[in-house]
């Protein structure tokens, strides 16, 4: 029987990885296009310069890489740990 803490241990890194992917996807799809809308409508207090926006997207992409890799490493580590624990419990 897989207990709730084990599910939490396995799911949490995946959820964070998905969140990082989702955030990057949202930034590329929505923030870039809405920044252009702000420029077209002359809302200059909402608009940010292309170089700054590019910097944001670039930083978000690298953060996304780091978070996803770490999330998958933790998921894999905990999966192996959980399987071992379950096997030992079954043997006993």
């Amino acid at each position, binding site marked *: 029987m897989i207990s709730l803490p084990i599910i939490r241990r396995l799911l949490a890194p995946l959820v964070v990885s998905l969140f*990082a992917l989702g955030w990057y996807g949202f930034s590329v799809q929505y923030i870039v296009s809405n920044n252009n809308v702000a420029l077209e409508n002359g809302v200059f207090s909402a608009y940010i310069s292309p170089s700054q926006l590019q910097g944001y997207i670039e930083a978000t992409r690298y953060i996304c890489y780091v978070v996803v890799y770490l999330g998958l490493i933790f998921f894999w580590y905990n999966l192996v740990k959980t399987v071992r624990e379950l096997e030992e419990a079954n043997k006993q």
Partner: protein
Amino acid sequence: MPSMVLQPVLQESWALIYGLFALSGFILGWAAQRGNYCFVNAMTSIFTAKSYERFGALLILFGLSALGSGLLVAFGVIPAFDQYYYNYFAGWYILVGSIIFGFGAALAGGCNLSMLYRAASGYVQNWIELFGMMIGTYVFAIGIWPFQLYTMANGILSTTNGGYVEYLPYIIFHSISNMSVYITTLVVSLPLIFIGIYLQQYTKRKWAISSSLRINLPAARAYYNQNISTSGEEKVSLTKEIKDLILLRKPYGTNLTTIILALDLLLVFIVGAGYTFNYLVITSSDGGRFFEYLLMLGNVKLFLNTPWFNDSLPIVDPSTLMVIMLCIGAFSASYLSGDFKIRIPRNKSRLLIGFGGGMLVGIGVRMALGCNVGLMWTNFAQLGYDGIIFLFGMLLGVYLAIKVQERWL
């Protein structure tokens, strides 16, 4: 008249600036989670437990931040305009907003910082508080901001400018020279640090006396003495202590967290100087920004025609990544230490109170032009005086919330 033009200190790419702000957010979330650092709890404990330990730590934090940033300016590492450029207006709205904020945050169970790291650690009540804050920001934008803007523009119980007008060295010496900044820095920071240390020592002495009065049985006295000697031995095994902290077996002490947070602020102060708001800032504007992002998914664009959203809020800035990474940092700390757990309060009315408190937090922080981090803590580092107003307003709000909770909730 002093200059109001930003001057970059380091030549960096925007990607690096965003990345370093994200790193500072991660450190902030990690350290605050490990140290359970909460501005509201620090103030609540004054009125409930008569404990000044955490409040003293807050004063030390403000003092260290002012000392660090002030000395960097006084010794010419950072130009003075990069310190005062983002000083806000001051007026009635800071006092009223901080009272509303303190009241709401004490009801909801967390300041802006603790709301985020607790939400990332699985506290559902703080998720609700966060959502309430987003709604509160919208209520403020359409109901209060136009009036507030009018009073700010016309100087009704308000200054009509920020920047050097709010800069204590300029107010005191009518100068932004290195010497005036140096003297002001010492005058502002050292009393804060000494009062903070005094309050902590006072609380410890009080606890020691009350413990010795309580422990009068021989067995209990033996246990107490044993613990005293154990704590003496712990001092010797410093390496074990450090190892425990690194391996997340023990939470960080209040003062260790204070020092990490002050250094974190200085990192941002140097990195962002001349580029952007170079202080730690969390959620006060990003609460509104995330609400705007949520509505963008439904093709609603608040920045086009909604007050405040279309005149005060860039679509993204380094604080956005700071907040995101604060949550990830807090989550990482809670997950790796085994603290992470989805926690739903048994008493479901706490969720409703959390939502209402969150709304007040959203309204309060926007009225005050910032939260306990982005305005109060930051403003001490800016050598302004808005932070002092906010501190007393927030204390009053927290006190009122405690009285309301004692009486009705």
